[in-house]
């Protein structure tokens, strides 16, 4: 019993620490700097959606012992499977490059060394972890370090809390510093960066790595709901910091270093380094998750051996694919596009493909062959349909907005 509570606590903690990544940091910062509190609703809506999706995919895997990718291939056939696979490959290679860049920038903020120089070393370090580290270390390590994001809350308190004049921006955003198109672009990017499909593939595979079963359903529910819920606090805290500190200074938070200034104001050097640490931990965790999510997806879809607790030669094709994908992402990153801009772009690409990645849910979660008596209730199905509608809407506008706004 005590062990179960320990697992639940760990699950919640890792969800909190693991919520942020380069994409959510980038969007939260810009959202606050440009529109005050006017985009908090988008973060809340996206968080609600991701809570539901994570709970569902966890329940699915715990009961059926099949991962999300397994189920897509088995239930929808190879040809359909190629659709989410292709969209994942495109979107996640961009996102992985951005995450590696985020880690490199975090290290550059500490050392003063250019992130371009640090980038290949970071890529190598991530590869070494994915190659040999056991699943527990990969899942828990960076996430526990990521708890430093809670210092953002302390930053808000130290700055005197949310000033009264900002509160109206909750429902009436300030459009001085950005146009309506910018606003809508950030909505799409927030949704794309929060409801990232890689999270679902990774979580589902993790449930198999940890041998979840029907007994894990409570753990799954608490991790998904409480964990993701609290995780969004870090994201909202960053948005608020951007609104309090950066907006009055006319700073738009177009680079990751600028966002750290919001922590430097209340806490000085410690604050700026807390931000850099948070960036390091969250981007590292996300990089590993994205890399593994794609590798899991391919290995499971093609029916190969997979797993982080196996030696590389025991899951040869899985590890080979993982290595190749990292090389592709590293090549993209070495082109030198600023990681924040790349993260925003990747988030909009993800938003574009969301309907493809999420549509299997509706059918799978109602299939008693997989779930027995644990299929979706009516309320949950309605929620899934709403999420899918939102995903379609966002997908429709994401590409034109990316073109119109030139990437935010």
């Amino acid at each position, binding site marked *: 019993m005590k062990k179960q509570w320990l697992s639940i606590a760990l699950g919640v903690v890792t969800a909190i620490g693991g919520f942020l990544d380069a994409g959510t940091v980038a969007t939260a910062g810009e959202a606050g700097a440009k529109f005050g509190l006017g985009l908090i609703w988008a973060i809340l809506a996206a968080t609600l959606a991701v809570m539901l999706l994570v709970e569902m995919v966890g329940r699915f895997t715990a009961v059926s012992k099949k991962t999300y990718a397994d189920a897509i291939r088995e239930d929808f056939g*190879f040809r359909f499977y190629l659709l989410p696979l292709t969209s994942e490959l495109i979107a996640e290679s961009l996102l992985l490059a951005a995450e590696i860049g985020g880690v490199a920038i975090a290290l550059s903020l500490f050392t003063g060394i250019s992130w371009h120089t640090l980038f290949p070393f970071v890529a190598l370090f991530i590869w070494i972890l994915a190659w040999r580290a056991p699943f527990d270390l990969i899942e828990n390590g960076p996430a526990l370090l990521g708890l430093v994001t809670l210092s953002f809350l302390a930053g808000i308190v130290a700055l005197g809390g949310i000033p009264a004049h900002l509160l109206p921006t909750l429902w009436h955003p300030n459009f001085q510093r950005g146009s309506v198109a910018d606003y809508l672009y950030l909505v799409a990017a927030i949704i794309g960066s929060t409801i990232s499909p890689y999270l679902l593939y990774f979580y589902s595979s993790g449930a198999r790595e940890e041998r979840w079963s029907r007994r894990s359903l409570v753990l799954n529910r608490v991790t998904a709901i409480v964990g993701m819920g609290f995780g969004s606090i870090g994201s909202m805290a960053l948005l608020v910091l951007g609104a309090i500190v950066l907006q009055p200074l006319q700073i738009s938070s177009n680079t990751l270093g600028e966002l750290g200034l919001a922590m430097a104001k209340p806490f000085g050097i410690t604050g700026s380094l807390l931000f850099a640490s948070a960036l390091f931990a969250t981007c590292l965790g996300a990089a590993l998750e994205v890399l593994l999510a794609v590798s899991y997806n391919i290995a499971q*879809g093609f029916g*190969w*051996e997979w797993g982080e607790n196996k030696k*590389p030669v*025991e899951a040869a094709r899985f590890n*080979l694919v993982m290595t190749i994908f990292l090389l592709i992402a590293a090549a993209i990153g070495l082109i030198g596009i600023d990681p924040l801009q790349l993260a925003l772009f990747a988030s909009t690409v993800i938003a574009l493909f969301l309907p493809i990645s999420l549509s299997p849910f509706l059918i799978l979660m109602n299939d008693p062959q997989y779930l027995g008596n644990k299929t979706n209730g009516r309320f949950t199905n309605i929620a899934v349909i709403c999420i899918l509608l939102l995903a379609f809407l966002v997908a429709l506008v994401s590409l034109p907005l990316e073109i119109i706004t030139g990437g935010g």
Partner: protein
Amino acid sequence: MIDPNDEIFSVRDILDSQLQTRDRRKIGRVADIEAETRADGSLKLTYLVVGPQALAGRVHPRLRAFLCFFLRDRFEHRIPLSEVTKFGPTLYLRGKAENYAVGQSERWIAEHILRWIPGNGL
């Protein structure tokens, strides 16, 4: 006359199912199925086909022909249906991974490609 003890599976049930060997190793998924017509006109499933060539065929028949030529037809493996001991979303096979050609590719990659990377666990 259908014997009620015969388990009837649709092709769709078997297609894309996971193949797992006796030593609990996953060796791939069913890409295609071969069948032959019996004397009484009914269809009997004979072989499970695995491999990239067959997979390409699921996307488009011309793609399969192209890959057959490109890969010199070396990557299509057929497993007799009689090798399956248990049906379901996962098909359990009678033999060990090394008994099947498709199960050997994992070993090949491990020994020829991964061996050059340190820490591979060989």
